[in-house]
């Protein structure tokens, strides 16, 4: 979350005037003798005056809506003041060109990105993405690559009509010494459930930063070790065992063979 989105104006002019006058009306009850619930009305009124004067509503922000119109132009996917920002980095012991080439072929990405179902390149610069969303929902969007510098940078943004508006970039830098390549991902997205949904998701560990980090980790494994470590199916005892555990400390040791003397 950037600082500016916390205070940016997100209300229209009419909304602000109504809020200011409504707030004054409500707050003025503190000067009346017979008014019930003075404190609450006073505080509520003060907050209404504040949001009217500053133009920033915390309620709208939590719900992820804007009252002052959508300022996005032809090249903006996330309206100013909205969205969640995530960043992650990994160092991969492979040459910059190799990692760039792997990433640039977007259809490779579902192999390493856990929640990505498919990527189809429609035309140069445009591609169709499908991901597994929360609660088994499928999320789809069309993306446009708006910057592509060979071996250095790829940047993209979603086009209107996306299930999730998003914009991001990946940068490739030589790591110091002979440590390979630093891969840095920036992603900004507008969660369908607003800031409130993103906060709840973060509480349960499903935040974008962790997801990107573990995707980058799989990319590293794939490019360095040639395979992605897995323990998806491992031999395992039944969850409920009917065998009796050893408990008695007086159990005889008859099963033990005689101790062999070391040479």
């Amino acid at each position, binding site marked *: 979350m950037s600082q500016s989105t916390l205070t940016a104006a997100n209300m229209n002019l009419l909304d602000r005037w109504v809020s200011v006058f409504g707030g004054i009306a409500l707050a003025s009850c503190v000067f009346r003798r017979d008014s019930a619930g003075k404190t609450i009305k006073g505080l509520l009124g003060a907050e209404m005056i504040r949001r009217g004067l500053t133009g920033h509503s915390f309620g709208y922000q939590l719900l992820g809506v804007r009252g002052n119109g959508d300022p996005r132009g032809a090249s903006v996917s996330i309206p100013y003041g909205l969205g969640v920002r995530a960043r992650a980095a990994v160092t991969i012991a492979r040459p910059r060109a190799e990692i760039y080439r792997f990433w640039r072929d977007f259809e490779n990405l579902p192999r390493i990105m856990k929640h990505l179902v498919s990527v189809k390149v429609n035309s140069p610069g445009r591609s169709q993405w499908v991901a597994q969303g929360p609660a088994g929902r499928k999320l789809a969007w069309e993306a446009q690559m708006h910057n592509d510098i060979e071996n250095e940078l790829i940047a993209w943004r979603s086009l209107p009509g996306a299930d999730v508006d998003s914009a991001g970039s990946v940068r490739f830098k030589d790591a110091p010494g002979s440590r390979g390549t630093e891969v840095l991902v920036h992603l900004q997205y507008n969660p369908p459930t607003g800031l409130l949904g993103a906060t709840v998701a973060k509480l349960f560990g499903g935040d974008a930063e962790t997801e990107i980090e573990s995707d980058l980790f799989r990319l*590293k*494994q794939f490019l360095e070790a040639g395979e992605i*470590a897995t323990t998806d199916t*491992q*031999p*395992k005892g*039944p969850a409920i065992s009917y065998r009796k555990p050893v408990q008695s400390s007086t159990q005889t040791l008859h099963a033990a*063979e005689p101790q062999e003397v070391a040479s």
Partner: protein
Amino acid sequence: MKAVCWYGNGDVRVESVPDPEILNPRDAIIRITLTAICGSDLHIYNGYIPGMQKGDVLGHEFMGEVVETGSEVKRLKRGDRVVAPFTICCGECYFCQSDLWALCDNTNPNAMALKKLYGASGAGLFGYSHLYGGYAGGQAQYVRVPFADVGPIVIENGLPDDRVLFLSDIFPTGYMAAENCNIQAGDVVAVWGCGPVGQFAIRSAFMLGAERVLAIDHIPERLELARRGGAETLDYADSELMSKLREFTGGRGPDSCIDAVGMETHGATIDNVYDYAKQSLFLETDRPGVLRRAIMACRKGGTLSIPGVYGGMIDKVPFGAAFAKSLTLKMGQTNVPRYLRPLLGRIQNGEIDPSFIVSHRLPLEEAPLGYHIFNKKQDGCTKVVLRP
């Protein structure tokens, strides 16, 4: 197949489980011929290692015969007799390339969970909780070994199993502990804990040129084994332990101290009673009594080497003493592949026979009994090997 499965505190059982399968191109399947219970398995047995699930197959010290290889396995072939390191290493990342194999970047599929806990994840380990990858262990008839060309060492000559098995963990672990002491001519090394790792640390310290080794434990047969390894012994229950350590070293203190105990210090000292109390209230995860004493005993400018496993938070560690005396602290999981060849060489030319540590040879089915007596140190138990 039969395998030793974890079911809770002090509860392991031999169960029938599905056979392992090749999951990745660089995997191999090994038929186990000999496996062992490690002191660090007892941390799991006693419930101090988080991330265990009921039914998990234990064991990270094992050897056997290759029975199946994945499509990308080039060096190992069917029929090879191998000892596998307990650390799983990719061989390609910065850390493997820098000989820091236990820190391998690419072998823990649950690295994100460990990263949240420790800031970064090291190598995946066999049979050592889901935080370390959830790999099924080797106290079983078969095991899947990932990156089979990297870790396992082929044993070509006719050395018996129990002489080479401990290359998988405790011999290299004791050796690395001594190597971390940076032993110079005339050095006195103190070793806390005369379990298997401590025993190998004692012998390795002499191999690396230590003048004297002081071994500290309480159990008579372990102290006896330490004496047979050339060490002078002290009882940790001795109230004059610290002054005797000073006396033994002419007032200087040991040049280096090895903590081969780790998170489960025993003994009825005041600080350990405090640790037991805090541990039972979940206010502290580990009991670092040995660490405290080793810091206090070590000579100025000396080295503290810690092969004993720690898992979480420790309290009241005299860090001011460590700072004031300019101590060097060296620790961590063992970089096993680094030591396989040199130590196999030492076994081959008769410098050491690692089977000296074995006190109990049991069939795999008796593993629960093995855990029990090893944990309680009953029946003179110093090391249990299991034959499937």
